[in-house]
């Protein structure tokens, strides 16, 4: 941590894979030549018992054409830092009493302190043609010292990329927390309003889309003009497995940044609901190839295929445990859907884990802790999302009967879930905290379903 403070020379590091810009550590803004204290508290604290209060004003546009980006970056950084609830973000519409600073030296710390801020962000944006340079510093308002200082450069096309990166780095530095601001959601949408080819029925295509974790920057991934469903991210975030109907339903893997597609199940029988193992080497899926829906697993290239369930009821919705040794799935072998767990190697050690639900369906194992979210029937026409802790046996509801709620997907840090809900009419994607608070609507265009959250 001290390194951030003491670093006087620029060090260049590539930002995370797939993020096309450079990040540079800035010299700390303390007066040069002055001796630094041997131990500087990098972590900014709030008043005892309360989270630190952060202020994120607009970034300063150093060139006139950077004004829009500067405004976007400030707002998005505020949203991103607010998302994990580690900090209290002072609302931006209360900053009017604080004079705007044009440089780190002119930050009105006294005014920020009056507003109750423990931390304040100061940033600048400079635009050169299609490129942008973003400088950011995080100041401890009490000590007036910069605890985080960095410069980023890259394309001006998507300014939201910069605050997402800054927020993740601040969460990491200040809280040792893996933020999710740079993660993505994949989901299925009918927003293109195209008709399905090859049928006389009036059916709209559903294609796979990806968007930033906050719903911005949505892009279409598949263009099959058929039904596509159930996207699932490879752990490295470079590929999506999904079901596509051509019209035979089959498992495909799209390497979305390479334009390459693979078909590991090769059209043998009907294949649905693929999910990557946590190490990315295997895929579990449902297949009707035996004449009944059963759970199978295979290597991502289709080799080492093995059948894990064998029951005349329907077995569906496989999900891997964080260590990859177990698979949870839905089965209606007792008449109604319930959740079971078995070995991912051979289907042994089968046991039912939901006992108090009339119907428990579509499990998804948290990638970070031993916890399973699922859809529990709470009315004749609807479900709510619940989370189940296998250690304590406790189940907690995180949606509360507004519309029907299904297809939960954990954020990689386990602190949030995405799900599909009909609460506003057509099915849309929402995210919610693990505690059921801080609901956010992510999609609005067309109807959108079955979210998957990238690492």
């Amino acid at each position: 941590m001290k390194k951030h403070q003491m670093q006087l020379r620029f060090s260049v590091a590539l930002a995370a894979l797939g993020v096309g810009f450079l990040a540079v550590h800035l010299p700390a803004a303390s007066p040069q030549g002055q001796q630094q204290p041997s131990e500087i508290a990098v972590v900014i604290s709030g008043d005892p018992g309360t989270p630190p209060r952060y202020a994120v004003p607009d970034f300063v546009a150093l060139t006139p054409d950077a004004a829009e980006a500067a405004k976007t970056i400030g707002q998005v950084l505020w949203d991103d830092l607010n998302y994990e609830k580690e900090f209290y973000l002072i609302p931006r519409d209360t900053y009017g009493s604080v004079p705007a600073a044009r440089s780190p030296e002119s930050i009105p710390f006294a005014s920020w302190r009056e507003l109750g801020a423990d931390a304040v962000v100061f940033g600048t944006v400079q635009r050169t043609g299609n490129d942008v340079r973003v400088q950011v510093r995080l100041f401890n308002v009490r000590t007036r010292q910069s605890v985080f200082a960095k410069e980023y450069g890259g394309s001006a096309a998507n300014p939201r990329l910069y605050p997402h990166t800054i927020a993740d780095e601040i969460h990491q530095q200040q809280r040792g927390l893996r933020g999710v601001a740079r993660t993505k959601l994949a989901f299925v949408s009918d927003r293109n309003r195209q008709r399905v080819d090859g049928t006389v029925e009036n059916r709209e295509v559903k294609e796979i889309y990806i968007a930033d974790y906050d719903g911005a920057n949505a892009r279409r991934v598949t263009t099959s003009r058929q039904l596509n469903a159930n996207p699932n991210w490879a752990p490295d975030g470079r590929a999506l497995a999904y079901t596509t109907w051509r019209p035979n339903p089959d498992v495909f893997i799209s390497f979305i940044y390479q334009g390459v597609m693979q078909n590991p199940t090769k059209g043998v029988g009907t294949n649905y609901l693929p999910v990557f193992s946590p190490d990315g080497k295997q895929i579990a899926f449902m297949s009707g190839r035996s004449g009944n829906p059963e759970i199978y697993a295979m290597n991502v290239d289709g080799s080492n295929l093995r059948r894990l369930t064998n029951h005349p009821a329907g077995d569906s919705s496989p999900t891997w445990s964080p260590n990859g040794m177990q698979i949870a799935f839905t089965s209606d072998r007792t008449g109604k859907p319930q959740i079971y767990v078995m070995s991912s190697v051979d289907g042994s050690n089968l046991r039912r884990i939901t006992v108090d639900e009339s119907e428990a369906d579509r499990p998804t194992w948290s990638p970070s802790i031993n916890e399973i979210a699922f859809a529990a029937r709470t009315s004749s026409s609807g479900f709510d999302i619940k989370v189940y802790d296998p250690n304590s046996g406790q189940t907690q509801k995180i949606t509360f009967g507004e519309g029907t709620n299904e297809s939960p997907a954990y954020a990689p840090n386990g602190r949030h879930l995405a799900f599909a809900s009909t609460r506003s009419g057509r099915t849309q994607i929402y995210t919610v905290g693990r505690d059921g608070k801080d609901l956010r609507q992510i999609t609005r265009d067309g109807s959108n379903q079955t979210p998957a959250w990238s690492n």
Partner: protein
Amino acid sequence: MRNQKAAIIVGLVVVALAGGCSRNKKPATSPQPAPTVTDATETAPPAPPQRVEDSVPLPQPNLAEDAVANKSIDDLNRNSPLKPIFFPLDSAELDDTGRAIATADADVLKKYATWAITIEGHCDERGTAEYNLALGERRATAVKAYLASLGVSGERIKTVSYGKEFPFDMGHSEEAWSKNRRGHLVITSK
């Protein structure tokens, strides 16, 4: 006139013969008037001319004239002779009504023995998207098994589940749901 005289002569001969055969009768004292039949003979039309003609072959009834078989696959599927089989809630078993419809469908498929079909399994919206993929798969498979039990070769039948992705009725009532729990038969080749 000659015909008239000949008729009178014939008449006399007939009378004479009659008298000769019936000896107990008294001989006629005077000739009887000529029978009126002679007038009929006089007005009879000539025999019709013999018709001379060749037979014209008529088109024979065959499959090419079958109103169903002659349609394109798309037209067939738009107004299909194969009716959907509806299912009870959360069930993949055909009920009595479903079996009756499937039996009628099997008869159509046996009549048009070259047709290949896909059975689509569909569900109402009340289960989850994922569960309904499994349920739709089981519905499609159940219809296929029933058709096979009636003698329709499984080789002609593919199955697919669409879960709740393509409801027939977009409504949210029991009436809509009952239409959406179905095995939908699509003709794919003929």
